[in-house]
Every structure is written in structure tokens, then in C-alpha cells.
């Protein structure tokens, strides 16, 4: 997935209740209920087809007739609170914004060129039988989810630093058996927050690149470089690293992990980023772990698999109180499917961790892949659910 947490620290928290946007489509007769609003944004005008709609699900079809990128906002009665927004509407393009709006007074605003306060107008949502239910605790739920996730990432990062420290020490000392045992355990903390770790485009390749990810002449460093040195059985004509080389790679890994830890401390998250992060972790499982490609030398893929699932579940569970309000059926499905997948993973647990990937039968791999698909499909609905 696209490194969704990269810009985490830069974004304002997306308000709960806000919006889902999609390409503008045919109204499909929706306009008959008076809740479809067409908005035409030009460089100096913001034409809104109606200034009053009944409460319920309101659809804004935003068309940009201007010459620069525009944005459209629905703002609260204080003119500050963003109820819903659609960004990055290019010239001659259209986007749809769907808002679940309770009765009240609002402002609409187009922002051609994304500058200034925007071209504003009053907007009223009148009472109707379709009034969305609003809980006073919503913001509380969001705040709790964000705080918990932030704490989780920091905690995993702390443990990653500690375990990596221990790992590189063993590796440098030539205590290979102990290093091999610790390798998947240390990586667990990386894999649990992989979508955060990956968001740093400079650190990720230095830390987690596999040999196949490189182009000729590119220097290979990080976890998997050391992995190959610790499990060279599969390598052809492999020359073990010298103690000096070991120290170089080990120190480099430690340095990058420490940098990651420093950067993680300053991050803030939004609910959609957490949801996208959960989806992304399962994507990592589907593309690399369930296929046995991630840990090509050590075959410790199931450790990573479990860690990705852990991270995804923690993200989901933090958001679950919100999803239970907006889409209870989805919350239930996800809870069940996480449990189903975990059951399969539990069956592969051993005294020292997990079955090595190359010891799994094709049927076991198939079952795991099916469970990953079964979970990933509803998980792809999570972001929309926390934003609706």
C-alpha cells in the first residue's frame, strides 16, 4: 500500500462524521429527495444548487470549472469546524462528497487554489425523519482511539530498540544460535508497526529491503542482509561476513532503528490512517508472508505474519467502538474473521515460536491464504466506516 502514515504528522485530525468522497456519478434519481446538491467551483465563484436540505445523507456533486485545483468544505456554524471536505478536485474534474448531516446551520465553501478562507455561503439542514443519531461521546471515542494507537506504536518502537540492541550484540559476538533465536522476535516489533516504519522512505530500504528489491550495484543493508548471513544454507557460493563486516551491518541497522524510534515519537495519527494502516498490514501478509517471500533465508515468515496481524488487530480494536456505531455488521464480521485467522496461526505455534514456512504443507498455506482474503475484504471497508 502507499505509505499512508508518511504525512501523519502534517495532517489535521480528520473529524469523525466527516465524509467519504468518490468520483461523481449519476444521481440515480437521488435528487428527488432533495438531498443531492450540485456545486460548481470556478476561480472566483462557488455555485451551490440549493442552500437548504433535509437532514440525512446529503450528496454534494462538486465540479471544478476553474483553472486550478479546488476544495469543497461543509463547515459547522462556527465557520471553523470541518464537517466534511473533498480535496484535490482538478480542473474539469468532478468529485462526490457524501455527508451524514444532522439539522443545523452550516457554511459551504469552495477553495479554488486551496488558499484563503474560501468562497462561503450559508447552508441549512432542516429537521427530518432521517435525522442521523449523534452521540455526544463520538469525539471521545476518536480521541481514545488515537491516543491508544499512538501509545501502542511508541511501545512497540521501544521494544524494537531494546530487542535489536540485544540482537546485534549477539550477532557481533558471533553467538549465532542465540542471534537466530532472537531474529524473528526482534522483527516482531518492527512488523507490528510496519506500515508506520515503512512510511519513512529513506529508512525502509536501508532496513528492510530484500535482495530482490535491489538494482545492480545497490548496497544491501538491514535485517535481511544479516538474515542471509545467519542462514546461508540456501545461498550459492556464499562467503560469510567477517567480524568487521558483521559489525558494520549490525551498527548500521541499530542506527537506523534508533532513528526510526526518534521519528515515531513525534507522530500523530488520524482514524483513517489507523484504518488504512490495518488494511496495509494485511496487505503485507498477503503479498509477502503468506507466500514465504519475506524471510527467504530463515523461513520465519509466520512470526512476521502474526506480528502484522497483531498490528492490524490493535488498529481495528481501537476503532471498533466507532465502527460499532457506524457499521455494526462490519465490526462483527471483522471480529469473527480476525479470530478465524488467529485460530489458524495458533495451530502453527510451537514451543519456540512458529512452524518454519518451508515446513508448512500446501494445504496449510492455502488455508492461511483463504483466511487472509476473508479478513482483508471486509477490512478494506474499515476506512470508509470510520469516516462515515
Amino acid at each position, binding site marked *: 500500500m502507499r505509505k499512508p502514515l508518511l504525512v501523519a504528522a502534517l495532517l489535521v485530525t480528520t473529524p469523525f462524521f466527516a465524509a467519504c468522497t468518490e468520483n461523481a456519478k449519476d444521481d440515480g434519481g437521488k435528487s428527488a429527495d432533495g438531498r443531492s446538491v450540485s456545486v460548481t467551483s470556478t476561480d472566483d465563484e462557488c455555485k451551490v444548487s440549493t442552500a437548504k436540505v433535509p437532514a440525512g445523507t446529503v450528496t454534494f456533486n462538486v465540479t471544478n470549472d476553474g483553472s486550478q485545483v479546488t476544495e469543497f468544505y461543509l463547515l459547522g456554524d462556527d465557520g471553523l469546524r470541518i464537517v466534511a471536505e473533498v480535496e*484535490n478536485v482538478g480542473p474539469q474534474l468532478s468529485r462526490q462528497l457524501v455527508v451524514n448531516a444532522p439539522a443545523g446551520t452550516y457554511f459551504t465553501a469552495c477553495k479554488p487554489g486551496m488558499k484563503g478562507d474560501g468562497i462561503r455561503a450559508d447552508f441549512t439542514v432542516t429537521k427530518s425523519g432521517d435525522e442521523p443519531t449523534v452521540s455526544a461521546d463520538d469525539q471521545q471515542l476518536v480521541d481514545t482511539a488515537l491516543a491508544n494507537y499512538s501509545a501502542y506504536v511508541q511501545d512497540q518502537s521501544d521494544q524494537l530498540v531494546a530487542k535489536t540492541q540485544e540482537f546485534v550484540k549477539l550477532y557481533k559476538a558471533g553467538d549465532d544460535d542465540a542471534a537466530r533465536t532472537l531474529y524473528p522476535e526482534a522483527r516482531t516489533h518492527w512488523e507490528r508497526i510496519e506500515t508506520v516504519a515503512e512510511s519513512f522512505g529513506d529508512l525502509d530500504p536501508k532496513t528492510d529491503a530484500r535482495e530482490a528489491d535491489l*538494482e545492480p550495484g545497490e548496497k544491501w543493508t538491514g535485517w535481511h542482509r544479516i538474515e542471509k548471513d545467519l542462514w546461508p544454507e540456501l545461498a550459492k557460493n556464499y562467503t560469510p561476513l567477517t567480524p568487521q563486516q558483521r559489525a558494520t551491518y549490525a551498527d548500521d541497522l541499530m542506527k537506523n532503528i534508533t532513528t526510526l524510534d526518534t521519528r515515531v515519537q513525534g507522530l500523530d495519527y488520524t482514524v483513517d490512517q489507523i484504518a488504512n494502516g490495518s*488494511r496495509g498490514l494485511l496487505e503485507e501478509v498477503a503479498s509477502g508472508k503468506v*507466500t514465504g517471500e519475506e524471510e527467504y533465508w530463515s523461513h520465519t515468515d509466520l512470526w512476521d505474519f502474526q506480528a502484522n496481524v497483531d498490528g492490524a488487530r490493535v488498529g481495528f480494536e481501537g476503532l471498533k467502538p466507532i465502527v460499532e456505531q457506524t457499521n455494526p455488521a462490519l465490526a462483527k464480521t471483522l471480529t469473527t474473521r480476525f479470530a478465524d485467522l488467529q485460530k489458524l496461526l495458533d495451530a502453527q505455534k510451537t514451543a519456540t515460536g512458529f512452524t518454519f514456512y518451508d515446513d508448512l504443507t500446501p494445504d496449510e498455506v492455502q488455508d492461511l*491464504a483463504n483466511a487472509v482474503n476473508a479478513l482483508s475484504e471486509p477490512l478494506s471497508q474499515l476506512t470508509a466506516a470510520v469516516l462515515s
Partner: protein
Amino acid sequence: MTGVSRRGLVGGGVAAAGLAAGAYAAGRSTAADGAPHPDARVEYAFRGAHQAGITTPAQDRLHFAAFDVTTDSRDELIALLTAWTAAADRMTRGLPAGEIGPTQGSINLPPDDTGEAIGLDAGGLTITFGFGPTLFRDDDGKDRFGLADRQPKALRTLPHFPADVLDPDKSYGDLCVQACADDPQVAVHAIRNLARIGFGTVAVRWSQLGFGRTSTTSTAQSTPRNLFGFKDGTANIKSQEKKDVEKHVWVAPGADAQADWLAGGSYLVARRINMHIEIWDRQSLGDQEDFIGRTKDTGAPLSGGTEFTEPDFDMPGSTGPVIAEDAHVRLVHPDFNNGARMLRRGYNFVDGSNPLGGLDAGLFFIAYVTDPDTHFIPIQNTMAKHDAMMEYLKVTGSALFAVPPGIGPGEYVGQSLFA
């Protein structure tokens, strides 16, 4: 309406495009219900200044095959190319591969055409031949057929690119044959018969079926969609852009001193690009569009306009440019690649499902370029390292071929190399 005179088509796809459309219209005019007339044939000449199947309007179906040469004899190799030329010339005219045909020969002999194309017309078939680097020198650098001193400089095994997970059984080859047609049976028939003719001299190394052309080589064609659901190849070269075809597709005389036989030819880059279809399908519409840099609906760049509006890479968006820094359309655009453009004629493929139940599917990428060192390798490296879409791709096959120029009457394909 019988086929368009192939003599009128010498010169390749540019002329053919207009004539083919004419043939189609003529067919329609005689059909009472307004449907295309079943006899509305499309034929492309096999001989001409350039090989057909490059700038020819992209047909809908592909069968591409790579061969290993199994003989050490230069004469046998030339004999094969001569036989292939004759068969290809016939088949592109809708005739059987052999002179006798599938049902007219001795009852005691296998027919010289396999017969599955009986009743089908030429189907717009083009057959295009190419030479791989291993035809010139084997893995130990040994000259195989006295051609080593004529090996083009740029013709060598492509380097490993990030995200390449190459299957040797879907990569490389001494020779290649690209058969494109509007009917899959016609394309398969062509490869099958050429392979049969070649047994003893060559062996099939791998082959690939494709459907749903994912590129456009003519402005008369609409832009098709790849298996990600996006319009593909909007900005690639069309045959009508004659200057760009000359500049970016054909090898100019004198471009490579030791391989002047290649002048008027091209380089063919083949890449079997598996798509992680199921994972892609779980991405939000907004993310999919951001990865590509275009809307899924019309194919307009995210900087606005319609499909063919030039992208504005500087137009600011809410967080950075509205076309993201890692958007596919930006990274492969000529503006960021020293002006390099490609002529593409890739195809979608679905080879059933993989052992995990995912589609074994993707894009069989074919590009014709004047020089892979300037027109493919650097672009592929940029894409592999920075393109957001790469997360959903895995390259499983790769090959590079030098495509000789077209031939005149009485010549065999590739004759300039052996001359």
C-alpha cells in the same frame, strides 16, 4: 468484399489503418442489419520497409513465443527463417501455413497446416520476428553462428530490476515470434504452425497468450483498460505520430556501427508483469487514482481536463502536487525521462489461478524502442524504485530482442543479418 490488396499495404500499419477501416465500412454497407459483415476481412502485408505488427493498429489478441535454437548450423538457421517467412507470408493472407493445406494432401501424410483456422480469414494477423542476445553469443561468450561481430551493442540480457522475480521458464530466448490477430485461434494457429516447422532447428522456450490489448498504436483506437481497470498507454506513441515513430521506435542507419543490418528495425522489450489483483481490488478508489495519477473513469490526469490533456505536474494539491510524486503517470512521463517515449503493444493475460487461489494475471508488456539503454532501462529503474503502483506488481518474465527491418519480395526475414 475480399481482402484488401496486400500490395497496397506495403509500408506498414499507417496505410493499413485507413484501409482496414475502409474494409470494415464496406462490409457494413452490405449488411442488412447494420452489423459488421462477416466477410469484412482485415489483412496486413507481411513484407514492407518495417515488419508488420509494430505500428499496425494493435489487434485484440496475442500469442507470443520465444524459441531456443537447437542446431549449430548457420545454414539450418537460415533455412528455418526462409521457411518461416514463406509460412508467415501465407498465413497473414489467410492462407494455410503450407502450400498444400490442411485437407488437400496425401491421406497418408500429416497435413502441412494444422487446420484449426479452416474457415477463418486472416483475422488481421501480423507475425513479427526478433533475435535475442543468445543467438549471437552463448552464455560463455562463444560465437554461435558467426554473428557475434554483428551483435547490436544494446542487445544483451536486461539487468535485474527491483521487484523482478524472474522465472527462467518465462524469460529470455534466442528468437521470438509475436503473432497478433483479432481472433485468438488465428494467433495460436500461427505460432503452432511455426513451431511445428521449426522442430529440429528450434524448440519453444516459453510462450504467452494475451487478450484485451492494453495499448493503442493508432489514434483511431480508443484507449483500452488494463486489469487494474485503468486506461493504459494514453501517452504512448501512435503510428500517426510519424516523427516520434522515427525518433523513438526505428533504429536509424548508422546508429550502431556493428549492427547496421538493424537499421529500420527496432528493439522489442517483453516483460511478464504479474499484478496482485486481489490486493489491488481492496484499495480505495482515491488511492488507486493517486497511484496512477489519473481518474479511473475517464483517464483524465488528476490535474484536470480530459484523457488527452497533458498532465500538469506542478499543479499544487492539498499535500504536495495534485499528481503525487510517486504517481505512475509522472514517473514514466517523457518530461522526466529525457523525452523518451515508447511504442507499446502489451496485452492482458490470465493464466488461470495460482496455488493460493489468486489470479495468475497481469500485463504482458511489449514495447518497441529505438534503444533499450535510453528508452527502457532507466525508466524501468525509476519505476521499480519509486512508482506507487509497483507495490502491486511482480515481474516474472523478461526478454529483449532485436527486431530486424522488414523485407522485400524474395527476401527472408532477418536476411540483412546474414548477408
